[in-house]
């Protein structure tokens, strides 16, 4: 509620467009009931209620969690043969897969190696292969998984040590689509005002901009596994983000489409939806790839 509002409630209802009120933008969004944002919030809310109920049902509090962790260390003789180590980690309410492996490392085996940083699904460091699916360690509740919880490094990437995989190829593919805002030539010095994006356009690329470069999609992709040159879902999604951005000129968009419509670009995608299934940020990757396919066709097919 706005601090400026001094009159009683009756006034607040008749004058919803109080300019100082911070509630107003929220109200506008609420009114668009079917907006994607609204649907996502609804889904999130439903999911939260669901999880609460499940947590109440099978309360694992006081129990221990059995995790099996993939181990491999090329530098220590005797550890060069990959194996699984078992850890029994005391369960706490709200424990994630990442919490469990951190506990195992801190309390049981300090040589257990994995990447992690922010623990809140933003840095994208801790994508693991958990119970046969690419998941973000810090975003996956232990209580939602069947035990023993099998934690492996991401498939289709070389394992450096334990849960650490070589991400170089993934990053190469990401950089191959030129993931930065650009223009053909530097704008005129007299014309350096800020470049604004329309709310509609922002909404269009919003989901694609959520990518955290965790590599889960690339690892789940059957095509990327067989074709090492395939750009992969994450990189194509990145290309989508910039190609669909209205602030870039038409020439740049064409340039971007030329990159993604190459032999190992969008046309390798066979719409298996694996990437969309595993994406921890719920990006509709397949949808974006399909849209770029259509854009590429539209660019090349001209009947006039």
């Amino acid at each position: 509620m706005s601090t400026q509002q001094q009159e009683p409630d009756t006034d607040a209802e008749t004058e919803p467009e109080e300019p100082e009120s911070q509630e107003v933008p929220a109200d506008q969004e609420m009114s668009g009931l079917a907006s994607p944002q609204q649907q996502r919030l609804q889904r999130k809310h439903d999911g939260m209620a669901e999880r609460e109920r499940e947590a109440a049902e099978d309360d694992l509090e006081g129990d221990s969690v059995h995790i099996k962790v993939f181990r491999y260390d090329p530098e220590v003789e005797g550890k060069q043969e990959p194996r699984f180590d078992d850890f029994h980690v005391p369960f706490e309410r709200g424990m994630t897969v990442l919490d469990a492996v951190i506990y195992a490392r801190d309390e049981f085996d300090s040589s257990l190696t994995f990447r992690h940083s922010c623990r809140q699904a933003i840095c994208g460091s801790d994508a693991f292969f958990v119970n046969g699916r690419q998941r973000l360690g810090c975003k996956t509740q232990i209580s939602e998984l069947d035990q023993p919880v099998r934690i492996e490094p991401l498939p289709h990437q070389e394992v450096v040590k334990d849960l650490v995989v070589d991400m170089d190829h993934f990053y190469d593919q990401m950089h191959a689509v030129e993931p930065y805002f650009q223009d053909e030539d530097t704008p005129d010095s007299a014309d350096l005002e800020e470049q604004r994006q329309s709310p509609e356009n922002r909404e269009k690329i919003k989901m694609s901009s959520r990518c955290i470069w965790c590599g889960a999609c690339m690892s789940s992709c059957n095509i990327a596994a067989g074709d090492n040159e395939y750009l992969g879902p994450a990189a194509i999604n990145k290309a989508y983000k910039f190609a669909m951005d209205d602030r870039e000129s038409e020439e740049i968009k064409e340039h971007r489409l030329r990159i993604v419509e190459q032999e190992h670009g969008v046309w390798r995608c066979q719409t298996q939806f694996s990437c969309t299934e595993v994406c921890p940020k719920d990006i509709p990757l397949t949808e974006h790839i399909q849209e770029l396919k259509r854009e590429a066709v539209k660019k090349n097919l001209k009947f006039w």
Partner: protein
Amino acid sequence: MSQSYNRGLIEDFGRWKEFSAGMWAWIFHKFTGWMLIGYLFTHIAVLSSAIAAADGQTIMLEGEAVNAYTGTIQGLESLFIIRVLEVGLLAVAVFHILNGLRLLMVDLGIGLEAQDKSFYASLILTGVITVASVPTFMQGVGL
């Protein structure tokens, strides 16, 4: 990094239990596609008996001479295994058609969030049509 461990493609083969709807749809679509291509060749082989028939050749079927084309078709149709294969062919073709429509929708970007449901729907519909076709295909053939 002195070395790294490449787990290769081998591990993938044991992973079919973890596939999701979209993956199964892809595998079935590939499989049925190859089956249909295989059928095309047998189809051409059977139809080519019409060349022999046009040359006036006849074959013996149940003690009487019929022209080569009719004889081949009737001979095949009297075999139980051929009837079973025909039901299989229908199942394969129907799934390929229905999933093909699904893929068309996917390509047009329509209903992408229901892609798993449309896959299950095409599976069920295929099953129903196949079962419904069995009496027709199995008419008048003994084991």
